[in-house]
């Protein structure tokens, strides 16, 4: 039966994460963007909230909480309301932990999950490729079967925390199989795996991302996610899109609320500019589109939670949220005028972060 009320547990999670994001992450947003560094203290605090280990099974050291993509979307929105780069950093261990949990063999779970339950453990997923026509339906990175192992070749970018990770999940096209993709657990130091310089991006500057190249990297067959009978990776892509869409809603809300409050303070022609329809209507449109995007995200997440195919829902939600956050951030900056353009205010940061969502894939997962 149609219902939009959060469960009691979701309400609790929401409130906890929301105040953490507002009170502790947000003050770090600007300094982290300027220095490119995220303080370890906030990372540890985020871990203590159970962001990663909460949904891991008790047998692997986690709390064994029921995993819900809807709850994941709620958490992601709130974290990004604090700061997108810090949110992506805090959530990054999931990029390996959740795929292993969802699609891994029992051996892979036993081997890789416990490390994520102990403390914040850097992990990376290599999904995006440095091409304009990068496509999750057809990676240019290839995996070729050779003598019972896999040989990986290709280039990846936007790989978060790659330099600090001891294991990286690499998504690749299976050679000889037009439609099939595989995910591979590649360990640090593998021959042929090269991690480039830290990337310099327009936004999410506090998130350390890297270009990664793979040249004839040999991966044992047992390290293909799910082994030889691996399931489709569609679920991972869908979960990633829902997470990114939820993060986009959080960034949009940050920009909207800031510009709304500014518009009520800033006076022109003797009245707050919010009392002018030109400004008020921009704010009204932001409010409507943010709610619309959130509902699409929740619906896609709910579809995943029911175990139904969600490619359509998650793709539409991500497209909608990505275009909404860009428009909202741009209009928010416009509301502040010149003040929006200077770095004393956070709106220019949100606009830079917002622009990334059309390019982002596989940077987070619910």
């Amino acid at each position: 039966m149609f219902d939009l009320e959060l469960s009691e547990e979701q309400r609790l999670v929401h409130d906890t994460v929301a105040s953490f994001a507002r009170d502790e992450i947000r003050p770090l947003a600007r300094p982290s963007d300027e220095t490119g560094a995220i303080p370890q203290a906030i990372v540890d605090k985020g871990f203590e909230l159970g962001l990663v280990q909460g949904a891991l099974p008790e047998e692997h050291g986690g709390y064994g909480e029921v995993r819900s993509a809807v709850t994941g979307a709620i958490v992601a929105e709130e974290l990004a309301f604090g700061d997108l780069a810090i949110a992506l950093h805090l959530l990054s261990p999931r990029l390996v932990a959740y795929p292993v949990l969802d699609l891994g063999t029992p051996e892979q779970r036993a081997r890789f999950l416990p490390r994520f339950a102990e403390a914040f453990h850097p992990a990376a997923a290599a999904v995006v490729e440095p091409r304009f026509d990068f496509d999750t339906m057809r990676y240019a990175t290839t995996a070729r079967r050779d003598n019972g192992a896999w040989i990986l070749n290709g280039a990846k970018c936007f790989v978060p925390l790659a330099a600090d990770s001891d294991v990286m999940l690499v998504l690749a096209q299976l050679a000889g199989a037009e439609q099939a993709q595989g995910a591979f657990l590649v360990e640090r130091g593998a021959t042929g795996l090269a991690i480039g310089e830290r990337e310099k991006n327009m936004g999410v500057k506090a998130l350390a991302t890297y270009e990664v190249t793979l040249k004839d990297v040999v991966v044992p067959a047992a390290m293909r996610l799910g082994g030889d009978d691996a399931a489709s990776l569609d679920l991972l892509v869908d979960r990633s899109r829902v997470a990114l869409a939820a993060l986009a809603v959080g960034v949009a809300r940050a920009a909207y609320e800031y510009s709304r409050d500014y518009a009520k303070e800033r006076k022109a022609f003797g009245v707050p500019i919010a009392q002018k329809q030109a400004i008020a209507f921009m704010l009204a449109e932001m409010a409507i589109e943010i709610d619309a995007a959130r509902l699409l995200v929740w619906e896609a997440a709910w579809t995943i939670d029911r175990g139904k195919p969600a490619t359509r829902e998650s793709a539409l939600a991500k497209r909608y949220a990505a275009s909404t956050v860009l428009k909202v951030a741009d209009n928010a900056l416009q509301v502040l005028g010149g003040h929006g353009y200077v770095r004393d205010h956070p709106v220019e940061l949100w606009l830079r972060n917002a622009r990334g969502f059309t390019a982002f894939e596989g940077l987070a997962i619910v």
Partner: protein
Amino acid sequence: MIDFELSDRIQNSRQMVHMVAEQMMRPISREYDEREHEKPWDFLKTMWSVSGSAPIGNDKSEAASSADGPRESNLASCVTIEELSWGDAGLYLTIPNAGLGGAAVLAAGTPDQKKRFLSRFKEGEPKWGAMAITEPHCGSDSAAIQTTAVRDGDHWVLNGTKIFCTSGSMAAEKSDGFVVVWATVDKKAGRAGIKSFVVEAHTPGMKVVKCEDKLGIRASDTAMIVFEDCRIPLDNVLGSADVQSATEGFKGAMATFDATRPLVAASALGIGRAALDFTREALERAGVTVRYGANPATLTALERDFMEMEADLQAARLLTWRAAWMMDRGKRNNLEASMAKAKAGLAVTRVTQKAVEILGPLGYSRNLLLEKWMRDAKINDIFEGTQQINMLVVARRILGYSSKELS
């Protein structure tokens, strides 16, 4: 608990209503678009006989949970209306029922008035209810209405001219329905002086002088009604007869919109879905499939357009269902109702216009229904509060401004 699945009851009724839309409405859709001002009586009588004709709205007495679970009548109405409008929005608007007049009675009437005015919709010949707010010189600024109600002993005497009254002709003259008329009892009192009055059909002094020729929704009559010394009983004023010191009377009347705006949004969704379904089928016949999972940079313009239409319509649908769901749960939904209406009106206007563009000659031809849906769709961006008025309501609520502070 977040859940996007409609209850079995709503899903079942949706299937039945869809059959009505497909088998009874679509076949006569073009005919009654072209024969403007004529009524499909067979269809109307059938609809009257099969429907419980239950009025819709925010009757607080029903708001509590029942034995069957939480109330969901507003959401159910949204789903029904979407299906009927998928069939034909003009025909949907002219189905005999209490309509917006009924919603006004539910929102502002006393228990006695609800019984007196609404019980007729469960029996006898087909009847219509209508609501008359707009006047020749004022539309969105509904506080500026000039129609007067003057007390004379045991009666109110109404004088003024109303326009754009949906089903006005059917409610005032062609059935034993009624028209809810907004009038001022004290022009100096501004909004506080505005009240709504129920005028029974065939009351002397009430006359339909014109039915508009329109761009779309041609099966639905849009009446101009003149009130000339029209005398109605004293207790036909909805709610209390006192002029409140504050703006209570006007607010009561405005509260009607919280119930009706999601319903108008739902009608918009039905037209949009008709256009979207039609476009999808045409693309499929041409061998075009939409690759939802693909990178945006690799999509064709057609795929992009189609995905944008689909997402926009679903976004509008979820906003609409949210507003209806809130009313069902007894939550205040003034903000959310206006959000839904503003979004749906605009989304369906864009979606239908884009569909005509995509399908070229197929979209423009009167041999097919798409061009009609585009014409029908536009009204949703206008009536029951234009897009701009709804944006204004949203803006006031998110900013915490009164209508004086943000006008």
